[in-house]
């Protein structure tokens, strides 16, 4: 998803700082994955540089500030829901009658910025019974495996938790 501002319009100094921040982030990720063997950087250096350039090109905005408390509360919430998502699919796949009642549901997203929306979209696909199928404007199309499931309230709860990860509070509670 492209950001609001194209990388061309940013001042050079800003672009360099953001590139540097991403280089550090991806270098840390690489060293966790590949270990501390110096020779791994023969592949690591080009990979880290390419990843930093791609991420700056496709998502030029500032790395978002996260709320540590929101993140801490989000992790068990997410693990719990995605565990039940797996169990739900297992039950439907193994049951002889295969209880499916799929359909499309639309949902109006109130999260304002691209990074928050991307986190929401990715988490929806791991929740019980929902995958995010399309997103344009602020309208999200969700495919549900069972139209009798409470899709709206689950996604709404997830949206509030995602907002909390970024230190935001969403206004309004009812549709």
């Amino acid at each position, binding site marked *: 998803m492209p950001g609001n501002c194209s990388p061309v319009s940013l001042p050079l100094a800003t672009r360099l700082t953001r590139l540097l921040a991403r280089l550090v982030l991806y270098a840390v990720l690489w060293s966790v994955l590949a270990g501390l063997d110096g020779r791994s950087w023969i592949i690591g250096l080009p990979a880290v540089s390419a990843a930093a350039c791609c991420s700056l090109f496709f998502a030029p905005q500032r790395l978002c500030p996260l709320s540590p408390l929101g993140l801490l509360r989000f992790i068990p919430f997410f693990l719990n829901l995605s565990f039940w998502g797996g169990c739900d699919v297992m039950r439907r*796949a193994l049951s002889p009658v295969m209880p499916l009642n799929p*359909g499309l549901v639309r949902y109006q997203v109130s999260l304002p910025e691209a990074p928050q929306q991307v986190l929401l979209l990715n988490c929806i*696909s791991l929740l019980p019974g929902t*995958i995010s199928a*399309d997103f344009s404007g602020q309208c999200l199309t969700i*495919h549900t495996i069972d139209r009798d499931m409470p899709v709206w309230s689950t996604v709404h709860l997830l949206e509030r938790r995602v907002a909390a990860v970024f230190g935001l509070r969403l206004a309004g509670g009812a549709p």
Partner: protein
Amino acid sequence: MGLLHNLGTVCILLGIPFFISGTIGLLRFPDIYTRLHALTKADNVGLGFVVLGLSLQADGWHTVARLLLIWLLVLIASSASCHLVARAALRKKIEPWSRP
């Protein structure tokens, strides 16, 4: 060490049914969208249990961090590709299967 090792083995064994049911779902479910449900969700939980089990058997924090990072990257890749496949299917006007 023995207890942790056995607990790890139990976790890895718990992960296997999720992988199997994800594959059974892929074969049995009627259309592209429902098959995506099976693949993303069941495999994510299966891999989670395998990573948890291997972490309990790991000999250092470095290995645990590496396993958790691999799981996180697989989560991001699988949910992003699930969204992209579903979006491509929807934009090609492939109708979701519905119960007749």
